[in-house]
């Protein structure tokens, strides 16, 4: 025991000087570094003191003359009466306009914030297009156009209804209400109702706003039936989610709107009727729509729809438009953000019974029954997260002009850096009996963007 203690002491005596020498060098360096750090900190403190002095010099004389106790007291009083203290006290003799004084918000946590939280979701969507073409008869040929700015307001009205309104302004500054309607979300018997101005549930494309279209323009088959921007009308809608033993999605909708509207009436080549002061049921336009959806499996699904629109004027042309639509989607769940495919087709059938002066104006060789048909079909493949490739084929008889047709083929490519904006480049080869020069090559360049929380469109 004694021997081991002696050995330990001897070892300690031998080691300590070496350690001390080693530590001596490192501690000197450490002290030097600490000295530098202290000097830097001193410099920082000096600069801060200088800045504080400058601030004090710029402070109001009254504040500068206050003691710490007074400052604390003032802070306490301010905290105790936040609502009574305006943000900026007007100078003596300066009148406070009554309106501003009245709307001064009360200070305090949550005030102001809560009112802004109740604001509707507001969004803005811009749609820029360049059309390059060898056919100068086309409107907006070889020029840039700001086709549309859309402002959307969307919010629940109360626990039972919500409101959606979309205003559009075109390049000429014309303001239009594209849609403005209230939806009553949960009526008895699986019913839902809409009232206001809305895009009619005719097929798939008609309900889409311009910025949500899969191609830069609407297909001929749709435009020649409903006009450049589709069919929107003022009226009401009742839709029924049909319960069924097969647990399949089946939605039946019935809509009634005032009239065909000018774009649709012009497209159909019928005069827009001015109804009598007291409307009867014959003076409205009616639409019935059925939509079904089938999940083939987790990655594949099919959607089928049928629409019928008609009016019943007593003495002028009766217009009936029927439509069928079919959509197939392949969206592999795990890769849906990178690869997916959609194929959609829509057919339009018009049946007009010419009456009254419209029929009288017909040549004797022409029938007073006028039927036309048209369709579009397109396929779109998402080949990467930001890239889509698609092609549309479109053919239609023109409802307003007998024995005339329009058709096109239209490959396009869309690049969407994010879900809030996209670029689209498309080439359209079109033949139209509406134009003197029937053939046209059209190159479309489009950029659309949205800001704000514009809600997702229907599936």
């Amino acid at each position, binding site marked *: 025991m004694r021997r081991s203690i002696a050995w330990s002491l001897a070892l300690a005596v031998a080691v300590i000087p070496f350690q001390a020498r080693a530590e001596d060098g490192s501690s000197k360096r450490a002290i030097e570094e600490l000295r530098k750090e202290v000097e830097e900190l001193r410099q920082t403190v000096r600069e801060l003191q200088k800045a504080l002095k400058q601030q004090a010099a710029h402070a109001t004389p009254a504040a500068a003359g206050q003691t710490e106790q007074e400052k604390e007291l003032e802070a306490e009083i301010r905290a105790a009466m936040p609502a009574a203290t305006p943000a900026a006290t007007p100078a003596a003799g300066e009148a406070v306009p009554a309106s501003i004084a009245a709307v001064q918000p009360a200070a305090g946590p949550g005030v102001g914030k809560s009112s802004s939280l109740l604001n509707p979701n507001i969004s803005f969507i811009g749609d820029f297009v360049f059309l390059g073409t060898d056919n100068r008869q086309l409107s907006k040929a070889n020029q840039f156009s700001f086709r549309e700015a859309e402002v959307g307001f969307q919010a*629940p009205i109360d*626990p*039972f209804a*919500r409101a959606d309104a979309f205003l559009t302004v075109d390049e000429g500054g014309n303001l239009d209400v594209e849609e403005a309607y209230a*939806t009553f*979300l*949960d*009526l008895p*018997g*699986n*019913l*839902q109702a809409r009232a206001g101005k809305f895009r009619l549930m005719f097929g798939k494309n008609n309900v889409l706003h311009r910025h949500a279209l899969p191609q830069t323009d609407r297909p001929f088959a749709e435009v020649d039936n409903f006009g450049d921007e589709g069919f929107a009308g003022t009226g009401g809608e009742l839709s029924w*989610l*049909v*319960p*069924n*033993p097969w*647990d*399949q*999605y089946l*939605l039946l909708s019935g809509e009634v709107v005032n009239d065909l509207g000018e774009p649709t009436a012009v497209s159909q080549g019928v005069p827009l009727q001015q109804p009598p002061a007291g409307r009867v049921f014959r003076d409205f336009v009616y639409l019935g729509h059925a*939509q079904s*959806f089938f*999940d083939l499996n*987790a990655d594949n*699904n099919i*959607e089928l729809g049928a629409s019928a629109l008609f009016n019943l004027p007593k003495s002028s042309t009766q217009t009936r438009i029927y439509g069928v639509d079919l959509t197939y*989607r392949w*969206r592999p*769940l*795990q*890769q*849906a*953000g*990178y690869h997916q495919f959609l194929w959609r087709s829509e057919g339009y059938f018009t049946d007009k019974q010419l009456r009254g002066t419209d029929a009288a104006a017909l040549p004797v060789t022409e029938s007073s029954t006028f039927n036309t048909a048209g369709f579009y079909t397109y396929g779109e493949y998402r080949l990467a*997260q*930001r890239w889509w490739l698609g092609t549309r084929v479109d053919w239609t008889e023109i409802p307003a002009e007998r024995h005339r047709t329009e058709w096109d083929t239209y490959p396009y490519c869309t690049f969407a*850096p*994010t*879900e*809030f904006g996209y670029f689209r480049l498309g080439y359209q080869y079109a033949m139209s009996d509406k134009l003197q020069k029937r053939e046209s090559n059209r190159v479309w360049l489009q950029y659309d963007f949205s*800001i704000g*929380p514009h*809600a*997702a*469109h*229907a*599936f």
Partner: protein
Amino acid sequence: MTLRTILERLMSIGVLCVAVLVRPASAAAKLYVVTTTPDLAAIAREVGGDKVDAESLALGTQDPHFVDAKPSFILKLNRADLYVKRGLELEIGWAPVLENGARNAAILQGGTRYVDASNGIAPLEVPSETVSRALGDVHPYGNPHFQLDPANAKIIAKNIVEGLSRVDIADQAYFEQRLADFDRRIDEKLAAWIQLLAPYRGAKIVTYHKSWDYFAQRFGFDVIGTMEPKPGVPPSPAHLAQLITLMQAQHCKLVIKEPFYPENLTRVVAEKTGAQVLTLPESPGGAPGTDDYFSFMDYNVKQVAAALAAAKG
């Protein structure tokens, strides 16, 4: 087909519809719980036991930000006795269309059959500056991937039990007893998971999206970067070059991505840095054998532990 036949068929369809409308309550003996994401459905099954039938709209292999708002989902929400959302605007791109079309006002926000699973969660990354899309696809109320912290699973479970008890007051005691049991099991497992990952506390990791921040906070990892330069923005070469340099400088040896993100770019990053890439589910069902919450977290914790052990060893 005669007019009479058509009328007879239409009448039979009508009778069927009425029969479905007035189907007896016994058909709905179990509460039908519809959730937006599988983690919520898994937790609803834990606390609801044999009193609930829980179903998720999104699958575990699916990106919960981008789910197709299929009409068939409207049908599910129409029949839902309870609707549970992850919240913090995770589902803002797809759920509102379904909710508004469901004709079931009780499942709308504020309704008796509506549950926001994020209630009571302390969200990470709530933006302190003005939020704009310049920050990417940022969530203004904070990061919605809180289910990856097991402690938050207890809060989710409590929210679901509150919802279940509102709908089925008679079974409140049953749900609360199951909640207490769930909490106890989470506490036990959490202690074990923390112990398993304790040797790797402070490890630096990279994730594809900002989905793993709650997980990292709970288990003490340092997320030094993400493959996405900003949330929802695909990786750019310039950003990845910077990320690789950062990973090399900080000796980061693990990249975590979800099954729905592409592999090619993570592979490039891994090759340049020598890091291992783990494909981990964000929600139960995202990998084989992860159908309930415990097996899901078990899988993730064990995979991370194994990867970090390999990097260390």
